[in-house]
């Protein structure tokens, strides 16, 4: 999917329960070494994992914002 949005995983909130992995119909998520790994090529932004997560650790965000966060760059409002 390339509409400028991506699935984003919040490592701080996540309780590593694996619900998102089991519920994803597209096998886009895996839990490896205690981290949720997202295959963005497989993710269709269907939001099943976003809704299912017991603690709201997954969300759909604009891609730009995520990249900025990953790189620690502040975006102008």
């Amino acid at each position, binding site marked *: 999917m390339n509409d400028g949005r991506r699935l984003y995983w919040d490592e701080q909130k996540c309780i590593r*329960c*694996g619900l998102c992995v089991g519920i994803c119909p597209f096998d886009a998520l895996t839990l490896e070494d205690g981290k949720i790994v997202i295959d963005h090529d497989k993710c269709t932004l269907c939001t099943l994992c976003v809704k*299912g997560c017991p*603690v709201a650790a997954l969300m759909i965000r604009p891609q730009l914002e995520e990249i900025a966060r990953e790189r620690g760059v502040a975006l102008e409002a």
Partner: protein
Amino acid sequence: MRRDWDVVVVGGGPGGLWFAKNAAEKGLKVLVLERKKEIGTPVQCAEGFGKEGLKELGIEPDVRWSGWEVHGAKVYAPNGKYVEVKGEGYVIERKIFEKELAKMATRAGATVLAFHEVYDIIKEDGKVSGVKARFIGEDKEFRANIVVAADGFESKIARKAGLKTFQQAYHADSGFEYQMVGIDIDADNIHLFFGTEIAPRGYVWIFPTDKDAANVGIGIDAREEKTAKWYLDKWIEEHKDEYGFEDASIIEVRGGGIPVGGLLKDMVTDGLMVVGDAAHQVHPLHGGGMFLAMEAGAIAAEVAAIAHEKEDFSKDTLSLYNKLWWERRGNQLQRLVKIRQMFEKLTDDDFNFLAEILTPEDILAISEGHWEAMKTIAKKVVKHPRLAALFAKMLT
């Protein structure tokens, strides 16, 4: 260390370990690989285990894990009216229980290895013939005639083998739980709170673990916009005076997916069987899965022994597991899925009405999926047009 295995089990939970114990007792060489560093952790469970279930599995309760004894369940309608159902059971210490299961499996001749993360299956001539695992930076291959996928809700292994085991969102519940201490509860019973505002499609539970401690949790429809945590926190806030939640300690936080439906007609392929949460073998009404996973593990072990005897690990031979499990348990769980689908249409008024007319025996019969009893209950609601229609639809 032996290199060749009759069976490699992926996942050292109750289902995988009970399979291992049973298969090892039949003389098979069994290896269990568990991803976590510690068997039994993290707990993702309310930890209730009925005495009947333990007896059926032939397990003697042991003070090391039996935890706290309860004598019944209080089932609450949204208006607070409850029906008390008698029933003996334990709220167990699952971390210790699973370690004991690992000991039992080992003493029967199986090997259990923690912190072995299986990341792929090995296929030869279209048939599953082993797994690849990582252990502290080391890649390992384990060959076996049969792979048992007991890898829980994620169910990655069966999917890699081509089985469609992903959990349909419609049949998934999202669960969240606190283990609390310093609360004021009736610790002789487990408590289940129903209501559309309380827990959409599910319920809030209090499972006592001591006179002043309990697993306080919730399961809701995974498709809900708000999180399981949001609903549980709201309920705890609203009941803080009643149960003394205000200054209570939270000594553990737990969560996870609960497969409350989507039973698999086909749980095998060439060289592979699926057991437990990975096969959605969970009670569709209350979400309990330990007993069902262990029962299925024992059935799968019987079939593994037959396949071993015949030296035939094809889908054809292994599909005896499908047949035996569906006869023993699947058909009952399928009826319970139908009951669940009726229950998820109930309004708070419907719940309140049912709490007035249902007897403890009725509730027990519902939880066991007794179809004849459902017909009797349907007669009790005939003057309530909405419920009468819902029951009629379910029973056709």
